[in-house]
């Protein structure tokens, strides 16, 4: 570990601007960190040559005074769900064996256009389905934080590789995707910041789809400010995505440090779970006190349909996934397992190509959409979704942001909860409601549990009010003063 890998994006940008080091030096330090931390299994594909070539271009731009912005020359890790031109893209699935897209996702293109330097493609749960990064065809990712007695822990999921890479100081920032908590929950598990913008803020074009009405790209960083900087380079209207919001991108760092005096913070009383560690409740109360101490006004609010969010999510998301994954049929790209007939080929290819969790969700999705069940499941889940959005709308008539825990537990050991999908699904219980309502939300590291593992706090804001979200998060971050580091990263 060198000093360069400890820099935040904002810090690295300052150093680059001051000429303290070059983008190539910065990139080389991170490439070395990536190579040194291979036991985390955070990357599926490392792209050091691309990184160095882009870093060189960045240095040339800086030399000629044509710097593209805050991200120019900053090394980042890219979840392997984003299609990248000429670079293997797997979604951590066997079924995409050898798939190298001839196109670049809008988000990664935006980051390239902003001068960011891609270090590699990070590991994830297969097709982003999972909360522990244990369903990847390329093996589980390790959390750089270790449990009691050095036990290997999950980094959370599905953006587990991205979270581990940022926590382990392999990259100052990474991009992930969040469908029900896939950025925020791993951020909480690895002690970093994870942010999901409003649905429609980031283009989905070129991102391998899991659940189209929920999927959103977002940044994973080590500070709130870095998340705001990175999101600024990622977001914007994209005519190639019909669900992209035709809105201007504000300066997400504007007013970041203005404080929370007068801000109204809602504390939803429904965000508790039986058997949740007392430490999480205590941290939540602590968060409330931190905000109040800075002049914010915290009030209890009710989001009465919260308890239906998770079951409804596990109908809507698999339903969309079952259809989105139909294109992986062995005909045009990826894995093909031969069969006697076309149907045989489909069965063999999809049976072998998809892992157990993906197959489970495709089956659930197929079931809830089938004739005779559609009204009872899918339609009802959509109604629940409307009610949840209504809960939030009503709460936001009185408050500016909501404060909740990010996840009901700290990181757990690799291998745990494997035989109980429902226990695994409960990881997303606090992150899913904001996803169902399409709201912006952020998790930031706020404390450690009794085992010394990081715990996150979660803020939710009104649609397209990321600026307020970042401002509240910055104040909380400042108060929490979280400076613990995983054992693996000194």
């Amino acid at each position, binding site marked *: 570990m060198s000093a360069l890998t400890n820099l935040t994006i904002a810090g690295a940008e300052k150093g680059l601007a001051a000429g303290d080091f070059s983008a190539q030096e910065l990139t080389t330090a991170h490439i070395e960190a990536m190579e040194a931390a291979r036991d985390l299994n955070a990357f599926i594909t490392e792209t050091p040559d691309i990184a160095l070539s882009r870093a060189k271009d960045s240095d040339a731009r800086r030399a000629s005074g044509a710097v593209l912005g805050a991200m120019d020359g900053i090394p980042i890790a890219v979840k392997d769900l*984003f*299609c990248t031109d000429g670079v293997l*893209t797997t*979604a951590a699935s066997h079924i*995409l064996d050898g*798939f190298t*897209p*001839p*196109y670049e*996702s809008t988000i990664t293109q935006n980051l390239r256009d902003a001068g960011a330097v891609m270090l590699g493609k990070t590991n994830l749960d297969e097709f982003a389905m999972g909360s522990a990064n244990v369903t990847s065809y390329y093996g589980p990712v390790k959390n750089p934080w270790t449990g009691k007695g050095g036990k290997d822990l999950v980094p959370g999921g599905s953006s587990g590789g991205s979270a581990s890479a940022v926590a382990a100081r392999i990259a100052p920032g990474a991009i992930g995707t969040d469908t029900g908590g896939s950025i925020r929950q791993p951020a909480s598990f690895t002690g970093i910041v994870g942010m999901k913008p409003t649905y429609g803020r980031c283009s*989905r*074009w*070129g*991102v*391998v*789809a899991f*659940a*189209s*009405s929920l999927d959103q790209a977002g940044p994973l960083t080590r500070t709130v400010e870095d998340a705001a900087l990175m999101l600024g380079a990622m977001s914007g209207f994209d*005519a*190639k*995505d*019909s*669900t992209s919001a035709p809105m201007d991108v504000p300066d997400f760092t504007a007013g970041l440090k203005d404080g929370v005096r007068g801000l109204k913070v809602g504390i939803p009383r429904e965000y508790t779970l039986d058997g949740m560690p007392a430490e999480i409740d205590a941290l939540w109360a602590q968060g409330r006190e931190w905000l109040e101490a800075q002049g914010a006004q915290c009030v209890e609010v009710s989001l009465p349909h919260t308890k239906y969010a998770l079951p409804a999510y596990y109908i809507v998301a698999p*339903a*969309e996934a*079952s*259809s989105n*994954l*139909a*294109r992986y*049929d062995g*005909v*045009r*790209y990826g894995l093909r397992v031969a069969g006697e007939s*076309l*149907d045989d080929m*489909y069965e063999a290819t999809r049976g072998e190509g998809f892992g157990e969790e993906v197959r489970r969700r495709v089956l659930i999705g*197929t079931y809830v*959409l*089938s*004739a005779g069940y*559609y009204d009872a499941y*899918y339609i009802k889940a959509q109604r629940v979704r409307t009610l949840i959005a209504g809960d939030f709308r009503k709460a936001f008539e009185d408050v500016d942001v909501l404060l909740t825990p990010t996840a009901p537990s700290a990181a757990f050991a690799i291998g745990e909860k494997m035989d109980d999908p429902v226990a695994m699904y409960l990881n997303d219980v606090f992150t899913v409601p904001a996803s169902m309502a399409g709201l912006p939300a952020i998790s930031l590291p706020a404390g450690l549990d009794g085992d010394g593992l990081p715990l996150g706090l979660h803020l939710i804001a009104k649609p397209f009010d990321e600026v307020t979200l970042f401002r509240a998060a910055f104040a909380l971050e400042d108060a929490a003063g979280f400076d613990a580091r995983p054992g693996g990263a000194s």
Partner: protein
Amino acid sequence: MSYIIEGETGDWEVVIGLEVHAQITSQAKLFSGSATAFGAAPNTQVSLVDAAMPGMLPVINEYCVQQAVKTGLGLKAQINLHSVFERKNYFYADRPQGYQIAQYAEPIVGEGTVVLDMPDGSTRDIGIERLHMEQDAGKSLHDQDPKRTFIDLNRSGVALMEIVSKPDLRSPEDAGLFVRKLRAIVRYLGTCDGNMEEGSMRADVNVSVRPVGSDELRTRTETKNVNSVRFIMQVIEHEAARQVEAYESGEEIVQETRLYDAARNETRSMRSKEFAHDYRYFPDPDLLAVVLSEDEVETIRKTLPELPDETKQRFIDELGLTPYDAGVLVADKETAEFFEHAASGNDAKTAANWVTGNLFGALNTAGLAIADSPVSADALSQLLGLMADDTISGRIAKGVFEDMFETGRSAKDIVKDKGLEQITDSGEIETAVDAVITENPDQVADFQGGNEKAIGWFVGQVMKATGGKANPKLVNELLRKKLAQ
């Protein structure tokens, strides 16, 4: 006109509904920018979206939406300001997404009407149930290799309108008239080229039968993808007869999908309801609902051209055509335009007779469409003018027309070169009349004895003597005058 099947147990009638798939005329596909031209080399008009590459998203082609609305307005139908694309999920090799994006529960167009022009000149209203937009599939080519199937995705994602009739059709002829009329309407509108040979229009044919006098709707069968008017009519004849026979021998008709084998002229079962796909429709989360304003619909309404029913009424009211002639002429936009051009400055009824008679006959024999007619509307107009001003007789005109059709030369040139101008000089005709009377005393006596019909024989002789060029009216007058003396 009723179409009755005489069975052993009594008379049966047939109930028919059609689902017509019409390709929207548009440069680009429904959800991608790929071209739609027919006949391009395989897989040359395929975008990343059409091939369903990972992470690709559909974006609606607004022009296709406008075309669908325009068609709806042409069908005098309800335009739904809110409509939704759903996914129809099923696996097939030429369906790369694993689903078809199609409107289902909320189509863009609701109920409307198509007016059939019956052969007796009357009209009949056929209800339209709905019109929705959907993507076409690619094409599986099974005949390129003995062991493998090849896939051509050029058609994948091409915009289609599915136009569904109510079960108001009662005979193969009705169905034929319906499809032809629908084709005329979309061609007038410019929303579909109606070209059945290229697959731009094809129909699923729903058929059931019932005893005459009953108003029940019995189980129907659906024969898929029938691609000519003649085949549609044959499917109905075949299916109706098969169903009557089944009922009369105590069998039931099962709801099923059938395929038409044109080579054998028979339909075969493809799959029955119990093996039917469960398509698991749900709203496509990649797309927003299609939302239109009244203003947008009105703007499109203002672009509507005159439609066949309106043109027909104008031909009847303003040009004095019979409903039948008018119906025949407006059945095809090119024909209506050709006729109007040719009739301009001429007698409309004569023009109508020439277009539907001589011209259609010649085109038919030559296997040509009116657009390829060697005799242009201008040229026909000139020929009609030569008849109107007595330059040539109708009889001569027929020959001139044949010459025109063959050589492409103008009527005036042909008449001039061949010296076909009508003899209207009464002196010249009188000489011929005198000669015939002088040379045929017996026939003169016969006529004068009271055989009025013999006048025809005299006319014929005079025409023969003048090479057919004498003005028949003058010949008649002169003969009557001279023979009466």
